[in-house]
């Protein structure tokens, strides 16, 4: 068990270190989310309430996540490292978990900038929204990393990722927006937790079939 967790930690640390040195994904995500928020200002005609802005925040989060996720396995594929990881004597689901944790870190860092920016441009962000963002991030990263691994194996590669991801992201948007705009966010937060539980389990259980030959 501790071997598994240390594998996961090592894999996550590898991705974080690579990003620290390379510094290409995170700045792109930050710039993207800032630009998206500015575009939303111009996309919302006057008279639409502040709730519309909150809804668009979730659009920004999902598409920023997609931007980062599309790079998730590119490095491994370019350097042919994925086969090495797969042959390593550890449970292959560790690859998924390590990368999902790294992706979560990137997304969270992007949101640390995005949420205050949103509060500045549009309307203040309450605790329920933040809780929704955290819970939704878990789902986004779990499913997103999984689907990124699948799309890397195809001819279309990263182009396939948004196509595969967006239908699965619909429940996350519903949960997130619901937590942000309605009076009783508890239901929506519970729903997000359910989504995370179900999909993280199925991702964890079936990842080895995605990378196996």
């Amino acid at each position, binding site marked *: 068990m501790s071997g598994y967790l240390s594998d996961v930690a090592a894999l996550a640390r590898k991705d974080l270190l690579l990003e620290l040195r390379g510094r290409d994904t995170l700045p792109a995500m930050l710039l993207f989310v800032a630009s998206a928020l500015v575009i939303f200002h111009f996309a919302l005609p006057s008279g639409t309430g502040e709730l519309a802005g909150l809804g668009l925040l979730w659009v920004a989060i999902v598409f920023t996540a997609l931007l980062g996720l599309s790079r998730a396995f590119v490095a491994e594929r370019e350097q042919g490292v994925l086969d090495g990881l797969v042959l390593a004597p550890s449970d292959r689901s560790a690859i998924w978990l390590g990368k999902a944790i790294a992706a979560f870190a990137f997304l969270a860092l992007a949101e640390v900038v995005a949420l205050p920016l949103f509060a500045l441009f549009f309307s203040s962000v309450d605790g329920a929204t933040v809780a929704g963002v955290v819970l939704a991030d878990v789902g986004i990263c779990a499913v997103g990393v999984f689907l990124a691994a699948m799309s890397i194996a195809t001819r279309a590669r990263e182009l396939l990722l948004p*196509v595969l991801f*967006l239908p699965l992201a619909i429940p996350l948007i519903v949960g997130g927006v619901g937590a942000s705009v309605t009076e009783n966010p508890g239901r929506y937060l519970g729903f997000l937790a359910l989504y995370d539980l179900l999909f993280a389990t199925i991702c964890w259980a079936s990842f080895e079939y995605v990378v196996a030959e």
Partner: protein
Amino acid sequence: MWLRNNALAASAALAAVLLASAIALIAFYVPVDADQGLSQKIFYFHVPIALTAYACFGWGAWKALRHLWKRQEGADLESYVAIHLGVIFGAMTLLTGSIWARASWGVWWAWSSKQLVLFLVLFLFYCAYFMLRFSVEPGPRRANLSAVYALFGVVLIPISFLAIRLAEDFIHPTVFTSNGPQMSGSMFFTFCVSWAAMLATFGALYRLELAGKRIDARMRELRELLA
């Protein structure tokens, strides 16, 4: 014995008989609905087609599981055909649902119809299945990826349904009153016959498409042997 050798013909015959019976019942037996009028009769096709589409996706997921878990020969092809038919039935659901919405409420699309919205989400998801499948070379890799995706789909169905239910609280669509399942005896009977007809149609088309694809695969094998 004859039944086993001619399973395809038998299932096609069964589907034909059931479909004919269903149409006869809908046209001549079941009474016109008091509230909604004649257009309510679309319901007798629309809902069974929707339920059959769910059955297709479920069957596809079952075959996917058999492929991943038991490494069953041919399960991947069966899963693919089931999902393919599911998408066709899903498209028919969306089309008939849209016509019914137009007939009942005057609009071609109604976000308030939870069933239609759910089908739209599933339709998008399973169309992506084909994009995935056609982007990978045939082989064990493609089979594995398709199977895993099919399983995701089946988990997505209840989750999406829940999501759409929850979304109604803040989307506030213009609510149209719709007839619940308070059917009289004759309506229920007609509905059941129609549902059986749709399932039988799926069964027949499933066998048909599978037979064609299997022959295709063996032809390819033969050609390689002779080349």
